[in-house]
């Protein structure tokens, strides 16, 4: 069983929900990223989504666009990001890491070479934002054969047939995009999320984590209550942006931002 499925099964057995923070690798400087990852684990992260910076992040809002730009000032490459995971693994063999990014840097490195290197570094899953199921049949098997989980996005616009097609290729978890929009949008509607997650659960048993629009303890616990986990990205990255000139404070600030979400989610699970 993959590290991701192991963690999610364990949480389910305890009736707890997964907390999945996202940060962009290399933001604001490549040497800080591994420290941030450890800080997120200390604050209660179950899985980490590590963003691979891209010059044209079409599905991201301004917060993550700027994070990509900050990371690319230092030319943070896919190879370097994989190296960060290897470094993280030296002291954390337990927390799954998912690389999240766009297709071109992966193809540029070479899909097979990427899959091997990612696996050897201790990466657990890969989410390619601009790769939907239609274009995935040549892609996913290469990742699966290397032992990597393929995470796919689902959206409010996904009809049942697409959900089923994604579930067929996916492993680990499905990432439900809570709203029509880009990352960092502020139009979360918990009732409609609950309805769509229920629809997805009627089609597949793969756990469903929900991202986009989760920014605080209250929204995290509300969405966790109707899904298997929450993904928090822009709220953390905005914290990095705000304090980018105080790098020594950043790990602590990320911890302070994430910990209340963990607490609220766990209280919700018990109560």
């Amino acid at each position, binding site marked *: 069983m993959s590290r991701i499925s192991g963690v999610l099964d364990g949480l389910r057995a305890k009736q707890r929900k997964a907390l999945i923070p996202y940060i962009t690798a290399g933001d604001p400087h490549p040497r800080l990223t591994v420290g941030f990852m450890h800080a997120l684990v200390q604050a209660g992260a179950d899985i980490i989504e590590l963003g691979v910076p891209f010059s044209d992040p079409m*599905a991201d809002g301004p917060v993550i*666009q700027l994070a990509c730009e900050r990371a690319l000032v230092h030319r943070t490459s896919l190879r370097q990001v994989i190296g960060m995971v290897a470094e993280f693994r030296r002291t954390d063999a337990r927390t799954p890491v998912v690389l999240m990014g766009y297709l071109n*840097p992966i193809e540029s490195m070479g899909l097979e070479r990427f899959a091997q290197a990612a696996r050897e570094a201790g990466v657990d899953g890969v989410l390619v934002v601009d790769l*939907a199921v239609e274009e995935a049949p040549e892609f996913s098997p290469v990742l699966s054969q290397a032992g990597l989980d393929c995470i796919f996005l689902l*959206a409010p*616009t996904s009809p049942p047939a697409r959900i089923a097609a994604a579930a067929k290729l996916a492993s680990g978890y499905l990432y439900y995009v809570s709203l029509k929009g880009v990352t960092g*949008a502020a139009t979360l509607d918990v009732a409609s999320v609950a309805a769509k997650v229920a629809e997805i659960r009627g089609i597949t048993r793969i756990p469903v984590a929900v991202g986009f629009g989760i920014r605080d303890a209250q929204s995290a616990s509300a969405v966790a209550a109707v899904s298997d986990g929450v993904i928090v990205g822009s709220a953390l990255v905005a914290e990095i942006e705000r304090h980018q000139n105080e790098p020594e404070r950043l790990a602590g600030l990320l911890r302070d931002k994430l910990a209340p979400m963990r607490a609220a989610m766990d209280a919700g699970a018990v109560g």
Partner: protein
Amino acid sequence: MNVPPDYSAFPDTRGHFGPYGGRFVSETLMEPLRRLEEAYLRLRKDPAFLAELDDDLKHYVGRPSPLYHARRLTQAWGGAQIWLKREDLNHTGAHKVNNTVGQALLAKHLGKTRIIAETGAGQHGVASATIAARLGLKCVVYMGIEDVERQSPNVYRMKLLGAQVVPVTSGTRTLKDALNEAMRDWVTNVDDTFYVIGTVAGPHPYPMLVRDFNSVVGRELIWQTRDQIGRLPDLLTACVGGGSNAIGMFHPLLPFPDVRMVGVEAGGDGIETGRHAAPLTAGKPGVLHGNRTYVMADEDGQIIGTHSVSAGLDYPGVGPEHAWLKDVGRVEYTSVTDDEALAAFHELARAEGIIPALESSHALAYAKKVAPGMASDRHIVVNLSGRGDKDIFTIAKREGISLT
């Protein structure tokens, strides 16, 4: 024997041109794109839709555009006869309107109330704002802030037409970033908004439908050359930014093997300087803006900044059909530099009294290179994709002349 492909059979049902094209966008847009494809495939066979489109092209755009024999230019260059397909005479001054008229009709039939567009030179933005005004649709145009500055007459034109122009400050602040921003708007407002893409790029079905709407150019050319020359021409040439004016002229003539076709990319300061916008000439296959095609990227797969004196060619990708036509060898692609394009710009103005767009001047510059090596009974058709009024400030500045 090598049998040429049936060019009309592409893209395939998955939106692929050989290995290129496809639909590489986030999940939220996949279903809306499928619905757009379905609607388009239905409407393009609907006689009422086609009649409405033809009527617009004739009475609003002013088609057919003339095929003009540039006799003095021919004399000046020596060799092959130079003909100009006068897309500059269309309403709004470029080929872009052929496509916006078509997409706006689609938007209307789909019940959308708001259209958005990206623009580089501003020609597509103006064409979108124009048709939005006519159909009473709301219109928002995304434009890199660098282009807002170098194409200010077109920015004002869009505002006069009632459009909102949003300057884009992310990334390289040019056309590619405007496209990103328009995609982000679309994914947010997909229920009431139609995204009018301005070139044969983007996810399927855009490269197909933008090609189809621009193909009126090549279809006219077939009967015009038969009428005026007595046969099909020997060489077609067009500039390639995203590639919509080029594919529009080339596509209907692809089945005629005796017609040579050359697409001309922006060589900027010269390919060897790295400061250019010529992905087919000097790029490699990759994925950008929803399709697989040739792109300009660094060794990490990051898309790199481009340079061209012409804002409309300043784009690091190119339509996927061109990528495929290059690989199968049906169309050749080359580039000319900023300086060569500018020289051709001046020569056309002086010899024929036609001020061409800087984009179109690239195709002219290529014709100038090859015409002298061809016999005088050979015929070259240059797609004069637009007029140069929008460029006079850029040219004056480059030549040290102040207009204000």
